[in-house]
C-alpha cells in the first residue's frame, strides 16, 4: 500500500468512526418512522427523550473519564445508590433529596479519582471495587434491599423528575443543559484541554507542566456527581428509590460513549457524539420494543456488536500513518 492510499483509507476510517453513530442514528430513525406509525408520535418521541436523559447524564461523566484514558465501572451502582439516597433524603425536603446523593456519590468519585491519580492503580480495578462498595452501601441502608424508600406524594422533589415543559420532562432539559455545559467545559476551558492532553499523551502532559493528577481526580468526581444526579432524577421520576436498577448500566454508558466516537484509549472524543450514541441506543431499544416479537435483549447484542466494530476501527485508526 502506498502512503497515499494509506492516508486516504485512514481518513475514511476516521470519518466513519467519528460520524458512524450519527449516520446510523439517521438511518434507524428514518426506517423506524416509515416502518412503525407509532414511532413518530409526539408521545413516543417524548418518551425516547426522557429515557435518553438519564443515561445521557451518566454518559457525560463517562465521556470525560474515558477521554483521560480511564474508565469508570462504578457508575451503575452509584446511580442506584444516588436514587436510594435521594428518596431517603426527600423526607427532609427538596434540598436534602438533592444534596445527599450528590455529596455521597461525589465522595465515591473522589475516592476513585484519588486512588487512580495518586497511587497509579488501574482505573478498571479501582472502579470495579467501588462498584461493589456502592452496591454494598445501598444494600446496607435499605436493610439488604428489603426497604424501598418512597418519595411522599406531596413532596416538591417529585416535580424535578415528573414536571414537564411542552410535554417534555424536566430531566430532558437538565440533561441538555448539562451536556451543553459539559461540551463548553471540554472544548473551551483549560481544564477541558488538559483532559484531552492527559488522555492523549500523559507523559507529554507532565512534561508540559499540566496538572495531570488534579485533572484525573476531577473527572472521576464529575462522573460520581453526575451518576448520583441521574439516580436522584430517576428516584423523583419513579417516586421511589428502586434498589435493583443500574446493574450493567456502566456498560450501556461506555458503549454509548465509544459508539459516539470517543476513543476508548483516550485523547479524543466529543460530548455531542456521546449524546448521539445515547440517542441511538434508546431509539434502537424503542424499535425493538415496537416490533414486539423481538427479545429486548437484542439491545445489548447490538451494542456489543457496534462496540466491537468501533473498537476495531479505532485500532486501525491508531495504526494508520495519521498518528505515528
Amino acid at each position, binding site marked *: 500500500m502506498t502512503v497515499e492510499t494509506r492516508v486516504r483509507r485512514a481518513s475514511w476510517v476516521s470519518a466513519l468512526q467519528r460520524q458512524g453513530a450519527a449516520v446510523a442514528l439517521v438511518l434507524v430513525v428514518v426506517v423506524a418512522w416509515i416502518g412503525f406509525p407509532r414511532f413518530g408520535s409526539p408521545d413516543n418521541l417524548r418518551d425516547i427523550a426522557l429515557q435518553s436523559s438519564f443515561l445521557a447524564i451518566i454518559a457525560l461523566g463517562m465521556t470525560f473519564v474515558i477521554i483521560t484514558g480511564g474508565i469508570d465501572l462504578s457508575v451503575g451502582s452509584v446511580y442506584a445508590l444516588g436514587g436510594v439516597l435521594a428518596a431517603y433524603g426527600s423526607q427532609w425536603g427538596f434540598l436534602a433529596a438533592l444534596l445527599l446523593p450528590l455529596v455521597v456519590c461525589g465522595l465515591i468519585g473522589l475516592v476513585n479519582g484519588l486512588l487512580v491519580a495518586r497511587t497509579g492503580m*488501574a482505573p478498571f*480495578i479501582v472502579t*470495579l471495587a467501588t462498584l461493589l462498595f456502592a*452496591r*454494598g452501601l445501598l444494600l*446496607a441502608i435499605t436493610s439488604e434491599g428489603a426497604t424501598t424508600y418512597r418519595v411522599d406524594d406531596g413532596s416538591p422533589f417529585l416535580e424535578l423528575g415528573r414536571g414537564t415543559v411542552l410535554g417534555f420532562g424536566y430531566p430532558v432539559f437538565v440533561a441538555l443543559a448539562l451536556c451543553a455545559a459539559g461540551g463548553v467545559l471540554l472544548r473551551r476551558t483549560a481544564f477541558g484541554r488538559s483532559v484531552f492532553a492527559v488522555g492523549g499523551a500523559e507523559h507529554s502532559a507532565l512534561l508540559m507542566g499540566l496538572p495531570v493528577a488534579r485533572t484525573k481526580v476531577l473527572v472521576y468526581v464529575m462522573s460520581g456527581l453526575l451518576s448520583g444526579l441521574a439516580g436522584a432524577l430517576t428516584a423523583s421520576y419513579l417516586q421511589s428509590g428502586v434498589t435493583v436498577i443500574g446493574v450493567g448500566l456502566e456498560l450501556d454508558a461506555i458503549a454509548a460513549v465509544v459508539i459516539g466516537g470517543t476513543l476508548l*484509549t483516550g485523547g479524543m472524543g466529543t460530548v455531542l457524539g456521546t449524546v448521539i450514541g445515547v440517542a441511538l441506543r434508546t431509539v434502537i431499544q424503542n424499535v425493538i420494543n415496537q416490533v414486539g416479537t423481538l427479545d429486548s*435483549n437484542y439491545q445489548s447484542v447490538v451494542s*456489543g456488536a457496534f462496540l466491537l466494530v468501533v473498537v*476495531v476501527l479505532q485500532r486501525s485508526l491508531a495504526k494508520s500513518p495519521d498518528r505515528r
Partner: protein
Amino acid sequence: MTALALDRRRAARWLQEYGVYVAVAALLLFNVAFTANFLSVGNFRTQLVQAAPVCIVALGMALVIGTEGVDLSVGAVMALSAALVPLYLGYGPLPAVAIALAAGLLAGAFNGVLVAHLGIQPIVATLALLVGGRGLALVIADGQLVQVHDPTFLWLGTGDVLGVPVSVLAAGVFAAVVALLVSRTTFGRQVVAIGGNRAASTLAGLPVKRTLVGVYAICAVLAAVAGVLSTARLSASDPADVGLLMELSAITAVVVGGTPLTGGRVRVLGTVTGALLMQLVAATLIKHDLPYSSAQMAQAAIIVGAVYVARERSSR
C-alpha cells in the same frame, strides 16, 4: 533511600507473597474459635462448593493476567455456556456440555485474536463481549430461566466422587492441570515470559501471538466449564444471573492470591487460596449475622488493599 521505605517495601512484598495464606489460616482459626458449627463436614462442603466456580474461572484469569492482560468477559461467557446447555440436552448431556465448551473456546479465541493479532488493549477487547455476551445468551435462551431435568447432567451439580462434590473435584483437577501447565510445559513458560517482558520474548523468537490466543481461549473454556457446573448445581439455566460480576470475583481471587496485575507471574496455589479466602470472608461475616452488604463492602476494601500492596512492590 530511607530504612523506613525499605522496611515498608519488604513488608509489602511479604504480604503479597504470603498474605493470602496467613489470612485464610487466621480466618479459619477465628471461625473454629468463635463460629458455632464451623467444624463440620457439611459446612466445609458448602464452602468449597460455593468457592468452586470462582476458583475455576480464576485459574484461567490467572493465566491471562500472567500475560499482562485481563479478561472482562468471563461472566458473559458463563452465561453463554449456561444458555446453550438446555438447548442441546436433548442429544444427551455429553454433546450439550461439549457445545457449551466449544462456545467458550470460540469466544476466547475471538478475544485472543483481538488482543494478539489486532493489538487491541485487553480491557477494550474483552469489553465488547462483556457488553454483548450476556444479551446474546438471553436471546438464545429467550430471556427465560429454563429448568433442567437430565439426571446425568444434574449429577455434575449434586453428585459426589468418593464423597467429594463433582464441582470441587473439577476445581481441584483444573488447578492441578493449570499448575502443571504453568510450571512444566513450554506453553506455560512462554506465558510467563511474555508477561514478564514482551519485547524480550519477541526477540527470543517465542510464538507470542499464538500463546496469547491460547491463553484467552483457555480462560474462556474454563469460564464455560464454570457456567456448566453452575447450571447443573442450580438445576436450571439462568443466563440473566449466572456469573454476574464474575470478572470481579475472579480478578480479586487472582490478585489477592499474589499474582501481580503487571504480569510475568502466575501463582496457581495462591489463586485457589484467594478464591477460598473471599468465600471465607463472606461466610464468616454472614455467620456472624453481619449482612451480605457488609461482605460486599469488605470485598471491595480487600481488592483495593491487595492491588495497592502489589503496586508497592512492582514500583521499585
